[in-house]
């Protein structure tokens, strides 16, 4: 009996600890979201529920432009990075390709390089080749750092795939292109989708690199929020940040659903 009760006690401690941890983790976000619905002009003083800051934010042309810029950058960067990552994963998984160990490492390395270093390097590079800073420069930079994120789930999906499936396809009168289209690609799709969502999440809230390589008129949403906050915390910022937060959460949920499906499908004999 004594053992049992002490065991119960330790479980309670664990619960308290983990609950505290979750509060610590999510309280700031909760505060942000709650105060975005605050009627008061002073962000920290609660008066009544209102959605007026959302309306105000959406009617702000600068914010509209920033959201559109962010979606453009994330959209293009996601598509191009996923395309590159898929091709890289396919090449690296083929038996004919030698030295895939080192190539895998090179592709994954940017994940570990400090972002500020990448940001400065990208800016110096653009300066060196006299590339004009603007939306295009942001897109190019985003494509580059999104590739490793897109690559990881695709590569994982490919290496979990039974290689004899491709052989079975070739054996059944499908040429290389048909094998890719009818066998490899449908099985790879969840991995590609996961890679694309991951790229999108990474791109939409990137700040450091975007700050360095953005030119005049190429303000993305995180950059705009940062510029607003220098004038003080307003409920409008809370509203815009909440929107950005929701975009990311939606993408993360999508990623989670896709990777769950991924696991289920890989475990087919």
């Amino acid at each position: 009996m004594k053992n049992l009760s002490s065991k119960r006690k330790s479980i309670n401690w664990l619960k308290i600890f983990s609950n505290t941890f979750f509060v610590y983790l999510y309280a700031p976000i909760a505060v942000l979201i709650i105060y975005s619905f605050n009627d008061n002009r002073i962000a920290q003083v609660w008066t009544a529920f209102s959605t007026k800051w959302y309306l105000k934010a959406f009617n702000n042309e600068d914010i509209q432009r920033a959201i559109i810029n962010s979606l453009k950058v994330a959209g293009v960067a996601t598509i191009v990075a996923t395309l590159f990552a898929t091709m890289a994963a396919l090449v690296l998984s083929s038996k004919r390709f030698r030295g895939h160990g080192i190539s895998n490492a090179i592709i994954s390395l940017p994940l570990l390089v400090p972002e500020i270093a990448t940001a400065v390097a990208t800016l110096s590079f653009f300066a060196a080749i006299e590339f004009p800073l603007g939306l295009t420069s942001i897109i190019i930079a985003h494509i580059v750092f999104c590739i490793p994120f897109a690559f990881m789930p695709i590569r994982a999906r490919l290496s979990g795939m039974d290689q004899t499936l491709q052989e079975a396809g070739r054996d059944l009168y499908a040429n290389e292109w048909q094998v890719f289209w009818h066998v490899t690609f449908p099985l790879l799709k969840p991995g590609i989708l996961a890679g694309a969502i991951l790229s999108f999440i990474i791109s939409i809230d990137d700040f450091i690199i975007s700050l360095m390589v953005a030119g005049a008129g190429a303000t993305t949403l995180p950059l705009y929020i940062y510029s607003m906050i220098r004038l003080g915390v307003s409920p409008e910022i809370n509203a815009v940040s909440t929107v950005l937060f929701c975009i990311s959460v939606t993408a993360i949920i999508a990623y989670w659903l896709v990777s769950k499906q991924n696991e289920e499908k890989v475990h087919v004999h």
Partner: protein
Amino acid sequence: MNDINAISVKNVEKIYGGGKQAVTALKDIHLEIRDREFFTLLGPSGCGKTTLLRLIAGFEQPNQGEILLFGDHLEGLEPYQRPVNTVFQSYSLFPHMTIAENISFGLKMQGKMQKEISSTVAEMLELVKMAEYGERMPNQLSGGQQQRIALARALAPRPKVLLLDEPLSALDLKLRQAMRHELKRLQRDTGITFVFVTHDQEEAMSMSDRIAVMSQGSIQQLDAPETIYERPCNEFVANFIGDVNLIDASVSEFQPGKLVCQWAGSQVVAANTATTADLSSENRVRLAVRPEKLRLVTKDQGQTNAQVTESMYMGTDRYITVTCDHGENLEVRVQNSDVSGEVIQEGDTVGVFIPELSAVALTDQQSGLS
């Protein structure tokens, strides 16, 4: 019947890797597989049997030699250009397609009409007795069912030759035995040449018209199952297929098909397919005797006397180990059909009798596998 062989393998050699790490998987293989034959490549893992199958399918290219399919050269043809299909060891059904889509895949790639495809798919499902399963997904089927679908998928395009790469090895014993009958029936019903790869000698014996026993990249013996068992050409084949006693004797006389030998001071007449030239200079010969061919008789009635050291009751048989007077141990199998109640006990002294032609002279020493 067609006079042309379904498959001719000529001088085929396959080497993996290069330089010092080169591994010879197949050396100088000659092989002819007849039309409508159930042909088995049998051997331990690493003997080259699967490599040979992959060369026929086109997944690998030989370093030397050529392979012909009904007289046509296969060289330079991709797997999808060869009218042969493979049943893979792991089934390899496409997990994202239904059973019907799996079976129709080959037909679709061949550009068959939709009408013909659906009727063939129905026919194939009927053939493997899984008519109601067309709309299921592969992961909803058991291993045995997946195996049947893999067969149906490979048979659907009506290949000229069906290649089977250890298709039964992932199934449990009962299912494996049932599938043997199933495979034999499918081969009869379709009239397609089957090339079957296995390491299971029982599987090979029960299904095949002819067996090629392989070891270390070469064919040791190619014959009908009975001949392989009754007349193994060398020690490897004798040992690999069933149990065997190997005894050394000296040759005293050649007769057509026979070899008169001296063993333990008595005469043994062994079956012999070789000529004098195949025997070593000292006239020594190794004989193979199956345990069930040996007879235990009353003392002094056989070629030698022996003491029973072990007697194991196995139901249909009794496995008996005897030690001969000159020290050699022999395994004997006695069928449990004697109702007199006389049982051979451990410690009994008996006579060992090797009936005429029940021993086989192992004359083919070229493989050097002793």
